[in-house]
Structure formats: C-alpha cells, structure tokens
C-alpha cells in the first residue's frame, strides 16, 4: 500500500512566553532586554516546552488514522504542522497528494457577505478552485438547507444556519488527504451526526483521513488505526479499540478497584468498615472498560465489627458531569434483625444496556437504616470508576446511530410497532 503521509521525527518547540502572552508591546521587550543586560534571568526565557517530540508514523493511502490524547498532548500542534500553518522545529514529513484541512468550520467567513459570497470565499480559502465551487454550488446550498437566505448577509443568520452553511462547504471539500481537527465538538447532535456520516463516506472512497477527536465513539467507529499522544510523544499506535481502551484507563482519575490494607485505615466506625470496592464482569474479573451491553458488577467488601442493626452495601452511580444516575442498596435480608460480625462481600449488578456511554463514577459505602433515615458507616465518593463503551455492532440502544445520545442512562427499550392505517 502506498504511503500518503510519512512523518519522521517531527518535533516542535514552544517558548512558553510566546504561547501565553499572545502579544507584547515594545516596552515588554525592552524591559526584558534590560533584565538580561543587568545579568538577571529573564523569567520567560527558560520555559520551553516540546509540544511534539520525535513523532514518527506513516499513514497509508486510504487509511483513516485517529489521533487521541488529553488536552495539551500535542494533537492540535501535530495537525498544524501537517497543514503547514506552523513549521516543525526538527524532523520532516512527506505528504503525497492534495491536502485539505478542516481545523475549524467556517474559516474566513465574513459576516458582512451573503451566504453565496461566503461559499466562494470559504471554498477558495479551503483550497477549492473557483470552477469546482461553481460546479457544486447547488449541492452545497441544498445540503445546507439555507435555501432562500442564500443572498442574505450571514450576520443575519441564526447560529444554526451559520454552522450548517459552513459545514456544507467543508463537506464538499474532496482532497486526496483530509486533515480534520475536533470539528465534531461543535454544533448539535444533528450536525455531529452529519460530520461523522460525511467522514465515513469520504473514507469509503479511498481518501486518506487524519482525524483528531475526543469522541471515542467516533474514533472507534471511523478509524482503521489510532495513535495515542502524550506529552508530545507517540505512546501507542495500533488497533482503535486497544488504543482507546488504554487511553481511557490512563485518563481516569479513580481506578476500577480500591482496597484498604487494614481495618484501622479503612473508612468506617465501630459498627462497620468499608474494606474494598471493585468493578467486575460476569466472570468476577476486574474491568476498567465495560461493554454497554453486558452487566457490570460493583463488588463491595466490608467488615461488621459487632452485633448491631442490619448493615447493607449501597452505591451511588454518577456520570462524568456528576449527574446522578441512581442510588441502589442491598435490600435482600441476610440478617433477620441484626448483623453478625464478620467479613462480607456484596456485589450489585448493573444490568447491561442501562448506563450511557462514558465515564461512570461509583460512590460505595456501608449503611444502616435509622428510622426513616439512611446512616453512613464507611463510604467513599468516587471510590471506583469505569468507562462504558459501545463497540457499535448495532445491537445496542443506539442501533446504527453513531452520534451522541444524551442522557445519564440509555436503556434498550422494548418497542412495539403496529401499523394503524
């Protein structure tokens, strides 16, 4: 397979002063110079950062390569180097084919100009020839749905219309190699869905796509291969699901298991202590990423120290944003009226096809019922967390839909459909 992009030890050095102070006045520079002459160290001088460090990889023609990593890992810098917006400090890259880049939707749109004028302006800036734009003009307008407003200045457009028109131009960009930054992060679900669909269609025609995103679902779905960047370096390069899983592990704050070495340090009181918490699969193995379709067990270890009111395990499950999905406690009756000292393990099963995709945080604890109130004995916020993902086989609640489905939960419902007419 011929190679479309060959990156060889690309490195990019930034001076932090350069990045922070977007611009300075001459006075700043003169005072800096004065400081240097006086023998004092310029505070900005030493703060250098390698945004990219010896990044090497090849992209085959027709391959869809995903780039993931936390903020500041170097993803955007890499795209800026490959699109020639900035030059590397060291290394080189060989690019074979006509490159189109989409770092932003609506680059260069001018609010004073009409939709029609902006199509030509934006298209030309993105690298389309005038003839090409003319040839596709009607398609672009149809796809955007702004129709009769095409001769209205875009400053009078709603933000939705603006984004639709801008994306519509971008969607008709058909270079050999397409470099795309986080454009899926903007716009509503419909817009994101369109962008994804469009990129799938593009890759289907043998074009090479390089795609930066935080949307792991999209990365899994679209990419043939994924590169994980961290601190400006390539730390992993391979199969999407493996790299994404690895990335998500490293990005989680709490792990998928926690335990305390002895009773004394474990959270709790003289009645009961929380000893451990673990996320497990049906085979009892600890897991960090959970298939959305499979049940997930939350296993809580605790010790009852003396006889007393019945002790039970309780979990509180929240999503990434801290929205509570549910509280659940063990309501089975292990003890008639009082608890018996000893060490226990309780596992609560979250059914498959219940939680939505994304990071899930679990608060775990041991509680008693005190009249009408719940009384905590030992508990821990964000004790364990895991990541729910959808492999996208089409048999989950999302069916064949690839965009974002909002909500804390995402149950797979039974649908009955009848023809009534």
């Amino acid at each position, binding site marked *: 397979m011929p190679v479309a992009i060959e990156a060889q030890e*690309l490195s990019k050095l930034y001076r932090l002063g*350069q*990045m922070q102070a*977007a*611009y*300075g*006045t*001459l006075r700043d520079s003169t005072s800096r110079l004065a400081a240097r002459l006086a023998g004092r160290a310029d505070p900005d001088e030493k703060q250098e950062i390698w945004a990219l460090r010896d990044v090497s990889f090849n992209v085959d023609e027709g391959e869809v390569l995903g780039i993931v990593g936390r903020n500041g890992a170097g993803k955007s810098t890499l795209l*800026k*180097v490959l*699109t*020639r*917006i*900035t*030059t*590397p*400090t*060291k290394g*080189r*890259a*060989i*690019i*074979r*084919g*006509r*490159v189109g*880049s989409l*770092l*932003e939707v609506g*680059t*260069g749109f*001018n609010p*004073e*100009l009409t939709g029609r*004028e902006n199509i*030509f*302006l934006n298209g*030309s*800036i*993105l690298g389309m*020839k005038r003839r090409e734009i003319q040839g596709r003009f009607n*398609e672009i307008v*149809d*796809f955007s749905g702004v129709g009769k407003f095409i001769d209205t200045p875009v400053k009078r457009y709603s933000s939705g219309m603006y984004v639709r028109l801008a994306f519509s131009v971008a*969607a008709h960009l*058909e270079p*050999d190699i397409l470099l795309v930054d986080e454009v899926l992060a903007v716009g509503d*679900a*419909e817009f994101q*869905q*369109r962008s994804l*669909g*469009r990129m799938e*269609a*593009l890759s289907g*025609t*043998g*074009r090479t796509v390089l795609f930066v995103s935080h949307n792991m679902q999209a990365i899994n779905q679209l990419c043939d291969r994924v590169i994980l960047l961290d601190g400006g370096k390539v730390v992993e390069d391979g199969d999407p699901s493996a790299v994404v899983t690895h990335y998500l592990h490293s990005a989680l704050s709490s792990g998928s298991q926690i335990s305390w070495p002895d009773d004394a340090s474990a959270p709790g009181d003289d009645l009961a202590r929380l000893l451990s918490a673990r996320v497990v699969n049906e085979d009892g193995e600890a897991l960090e990423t959970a298939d959305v379709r499979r049940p997930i067990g939350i296993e809580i270890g605790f010790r009852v120290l003396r006889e007393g009111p019945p002790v039970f395990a309780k979990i509180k499950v929240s999503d990434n944003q801290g929205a509570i999905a549910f509280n659940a406690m063990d309501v089975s009756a292990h003890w008639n009226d009082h608890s018996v000292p000893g060490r226990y393990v309780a596992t609560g099963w979250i059914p498959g096809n219940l939680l939505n995709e994304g990071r899930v945080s679990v608060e775990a604890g041991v509680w008693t019922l005190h009249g009408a109130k719940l009384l905590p004995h030992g508990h821990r916020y964000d004790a364990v967390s895991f990541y729910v993902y959808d492999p996208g086989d089409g048999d989950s609640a999302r069916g064949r*839909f690839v*965009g974002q489905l909002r909500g804390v939960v995402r149950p797979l419902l039974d649908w009955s459909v009848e023809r009534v007419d």
Partner: protein
Amino acid sequence: MTQIEEERLQRTAPVPRPLESRPRGDRPTFVIRPAPRWPHLDIRELWHYREVLGTIVWRDIKVRYKQTFLGVVWAILVPAFTATVYVVVFGKFAKFPSGNVAYPSLVVAGVIPMQYFASALSQSSMCLVANLPLVTKVYFPRVLLPLAAVLVPVVDFLVGLPVLITLMGLYGTWPKGVQLVSAPAFLALALVTALGIGFFLSSVNVRYRDVPYIIPVFLQVLPLVSGVMYAVEEVPTKWQWILAVNPMTTVISGWRWAVLGAPEPIWPQAGLGAAVGIALFLIGLTVFRASEPRFADTI
C-alpha cells in the same frame, strides 16, 4: 433526533465523488521541514495560490463599502475634500509655489497617489492581525495578505481619477504626449514601497501591537515631505536631494510630469527615490519571509 430527521439526513448526505484515478506520479508531493535559514520567495507556489489572492482582494473590495450609505462615492469625496483644504490653506493663504501648473491640479495630482499610498500602507501593515482566523487556521502563502492589501486601494485610486481629469479639463493642463504611458510605473513604485513597508510592519505587528500607533504619525508627516502641496522643483536644490530619499517624492513628481505635463523630474533624484523604494521592498520581503514560520505561533 427523531427517526424522521435521521432518514432525512441519510437522504441528503452528499455522496463524495470517487477519488480521481490519477497515475501516482501526478500526486503532488510536498515535504514539510523546519523553516529554512535563508528566506526565499517561492514564485511557483504563489502562482498556485493566485485564486486565493483574487478571493481576498474581491472580499475586501466587497466588504469595504457594504453598509455605507454613499458607498464607492467616498473614494471621490475623501481626496476631493483633502485637496480642497490644501488648495484653500496652502494655495490661497500661504501662496505655495506651484510651478507651471495650476495649483488645484497640482494638489489633486499629489493627493490621489498619496491617498493610495496611505491606504495601502495602513492596510498592509494591519493585514496579518486583521486576518487572524485565517493565519491560525488555514495555510496559504502569507505574502498574499499584504499583497492583497496594496491591490485593494487601487480601486479607490481609479475611482478618484475623474476628479483629477475634471480639474485638468478646467485648467487645461493636459498630458504632453507619450510620457503619459509612464504614469502606471510611478503608481507601481508607490505600490512596491507601500508593500515593502507593509511587509515589515505587518510582521512586527504580529509580535508588537505598537504599529497602529506609529502609522498615523508617519502618514501625517509624509505629505509634507513628499511635495503633495508644493512643486518639488521650486524647493532649493540641496533640499530637493533630501526630499528625493523619500520614494513618494519621486512618485508624485513623476506622476505630475506624466499626467499634468509638469516639468520633467530630475532623473538622478527620481532614481534615488526608486532605489530606496525597491530597497524597502526587498528588506520588507526578507523580514516577512524570515518571520513567516512563527506568525501562527506568536500572533
């Protein structure tokens, strides 16, 4: 999203054209490297991006007079107003020497190129910062931005010409023969000089936003030392040589000679002005190209 919406999307999603089956050798190959030590100008690349230049010029002309009530009439009103003030203050009150040409024609023939130069200079100096979204989000040779900025005011210049032609008719100062064909060359010198300074100041402006404060001061002084409101040949000779260092002196005296039939410029002086203009252009271009790789990082 409802099922209906989803179906609509699937129906309207554009089907990308299949990849052109070009022989592999035809695919352009580009090598990205660190910035070269010595800047050079890639003419072939500029030619490749010529449509983008056209687009930017077209955009700026379109936007310039959108939502103004008088629109392009301003291109006539501004020089006419300036010239009227000059004629009254310097011609009537101060009785500046005008040589063998009627004073109003002399002034208008100076004001119009000066007006062009002022617009070209201030717009090209601001062009990188004014186009910040483009500089940080998409690649094209950055040279196109100052270049477009000095081309756009040519339109105003052309629109302002009828004012001069009217005055020429009123005072009967018509061009004397073939020297008229040299008129565009003098305008070109103004363009090249403005572009050179624009290259330099726009690169500086990326890092230091002091530039917008400098330009108005400079442009206030410049007409006084370019002979806009007087005829340069009426000035004592040794002062003429000092004024000749300023390329705009050459532009204005040459332009008057070409279109008004004013006395021929003293060619060594004109040569000095032209040489300074070209030198400014080359220095500006070098500075611009040398700092170009850092524009997106520092702007």
